[in-house]
């Protein structure tokens, strides 16, 4: 073959692996400080530009300004953590999808490594969630203690105090359950998303499709979760109303009950129970479903992946 014969250029393109590693390291190192900085800057900015003028009809300007700024801070932090949680789920699913290889013997270990590599993202979200808790604690300090000046009187303060006095144990238990899930939620979400991504990736015909399938599964699961809440809530409430038939005109089982939720009414207890059960069910799903997904993924990989032998690929 002569030198001038046009041969296809087979040499692979040089990969800039070093820069990729450096980029990933920079993200890992800078994620937590960047999150803190972003959250801090946003809080300072929004608090600086809002609630500077108190309307003339406000009875207690101090309660108005502090209350408004606390609600704004919770809103900002909630928004940031929601974006972070969403991104964490997507990235975890994508990484989980890319962890799939061979017949899945080392799938569990590969997923653990993937999770460890992006645990910094989960910690960033936990940090933001911790910020929300801190703001809520500050709200409680402002409302119920004289530590930061005379206690502030908001509309809900009396209700919360009465509920705490009437049902201290159930309310405290509910707070503990919700708080636990709120703080470890990102870690559970990461675990769930990597497993879901890995399972979805087993349907990929080519390795390049794994990431997209994992993302599809994660976004689909998010949509399914949202619809489960909206449809489930709507359906349950429709059935309850149809059976109980609360009406202005007819005598019903709701008749005689106060129209507004009273702090001493047993509905508070029911609400606490429903919240606890819901959170525990979600948590159980996030704990046990990943194991099922990984087992299913391994079974699928064993069944579908080509087996390598000494004489070649079967």
């Amino acid at each position, binding site marked *: 073959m002569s030198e001038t014969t046009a041969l296809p250029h087979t040499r692979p393109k040089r990969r800039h692996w070093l820069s990729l590693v450096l980029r990933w390291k920079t993200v890992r190192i800078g994620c937590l400080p960047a999150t803190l900085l972003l959250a801090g800057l946003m809080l300072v900015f929004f608090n600086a530009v809002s609630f500077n003028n108190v309307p003339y009809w406000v009875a207690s300007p101090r309660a108005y300004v502090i209350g408004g700024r606390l609600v704004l801070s919770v809103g900002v932090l909630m928004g940031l953590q929601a974006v972070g949680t969403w991104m964490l789920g997507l990235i975890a699913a994508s990484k989980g999808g890319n962890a799939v290889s061979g017949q899945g013997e080392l799938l569990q270990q590969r997923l653990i490594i993937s999770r460890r590599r992006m645990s910094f993202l989960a910690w960033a979200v936990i940090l933001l969630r911790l910020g929300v808790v801190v703001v809520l604690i500050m709200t409680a300090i402002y409302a119920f203690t004289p530590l930061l000046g005379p206690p502030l009187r908001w509309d809900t303060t009396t209700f919360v105090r009465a509920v705490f006095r009437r049902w201290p144990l159930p309310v405290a238990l509910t707070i503990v359950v919700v708080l636990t899930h709120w703080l470890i939620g990102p870690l559970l979400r990461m675990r769930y998303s990597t497993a879901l991504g890995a399972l979805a990736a087993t349907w990929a015909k080519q390795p390049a*499709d794994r990431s*997209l399938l994992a*993302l*599809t599964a994660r*976004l*689909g699961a*998010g*949509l399914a979760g*949202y*619809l489960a809440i*909206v*449809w489930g*809530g*709507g*359906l349950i*409430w*429709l059935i309850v*109303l*149809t059976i*109980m038939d*609360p*009406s202005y005109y007819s005598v019903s089982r*709701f008749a005689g*009950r106060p*129209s*507004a*939720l009273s702090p001493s009414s047993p*509905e508070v207890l029911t609400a606490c129970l429903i919240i606890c059960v819901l959170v525990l069910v979600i948590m159980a799903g996030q704990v046990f479903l990943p194991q099922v997904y990984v087992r299913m993924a391994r079974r699928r990989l064993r069944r579908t992946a080509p087996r390598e032998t000494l004489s070649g690929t079967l």
Partner: protein
Amino acid sequence: MADQLRVLPLIRPRWAQVTHPVYRLERQRRERIRSLAGLNQKFMPVLFGMCGGLCLLFVILGLSARGWAWGSWWEQFEHLARNSLGFTLLALLFVQLIAGMVVNIVTVAQAAPLIGGEVELRSWGLLRVTTVPLHEIIFAKFAAAVRHLRSLLTGLLILRGISLVTGILLFAYVVLRDIFYSFSPADWQRFWGDGLWFPALLALCAGVIFFAAQPGVQVLLNTALGMLASAFSRSRGQAVGLGLAARLVLWIASILSDFVLIYGLTFLFSNWLEPRYATLEAFRNQPAPTTQQAVWAVSLAIFGYLLAVMLWQAGFILTALGLIQRRARSIGP
């Protein structure tokens, strides 16, 4: 599942199987189009992401704009559940509108070069001298074009299914809490005894079938339209332009005709239901219809209208395929 998929080729027509040369050729051509492959891969995640994000946004913004209902706590829960369903449906319909538009344009653009491209490349004559009959060439191209849109179609069908369930739940709220709630025993007797449930159920079923079938019907209709434009063009560019223009004209015409028909029917019904206030002279001296007559007439009108639209769509697809064959016979090499 795998066994079921293996059975599928048996019920498929010959021209839609991989063994058919034209179908195979078209499939291979389409597999090489990177943009189509990318769109097929990314459509579902984008659709799910858009749906989830927009539903949440619509519900949060909608609920915060409307605030809480006045009244007891159970009424506030009902308000919350009903509005969440309503805003979710609104978001889903919005996503459907955007996604449907994209899929319509892609379908026409994919189907338009099917014959015009062959004519431009001077390969149409070669195809015609083979032993494959003309109708099989056209149907095989049609099937291959539709096959590569199945990912988009699946996404739209999932979205339709979700919207349908949300819509039915919302409808149940309206019917159970606003209509049945105030029914007297005499009303119930009339509803069940006089069979008033039947026309309402008929109209509801027609609406559900019409709504659920639309993505599939639209894909077939747009493919047929694109191919029809292709049969009357001498190049790919011309075919795509003609196809998109035809789709736009069809879209505007259908919106205008639907508007005129629905408005006209509503106007006639309002005249007929309340002859005392009728603006048309012909209805003034007529007796007012009974509830039974009114329910039957309105339900049958909805049923008939939806059936007519579906028949028109099916007729358009079949006519377009017939016209394509007729035109393709006279296309030179």
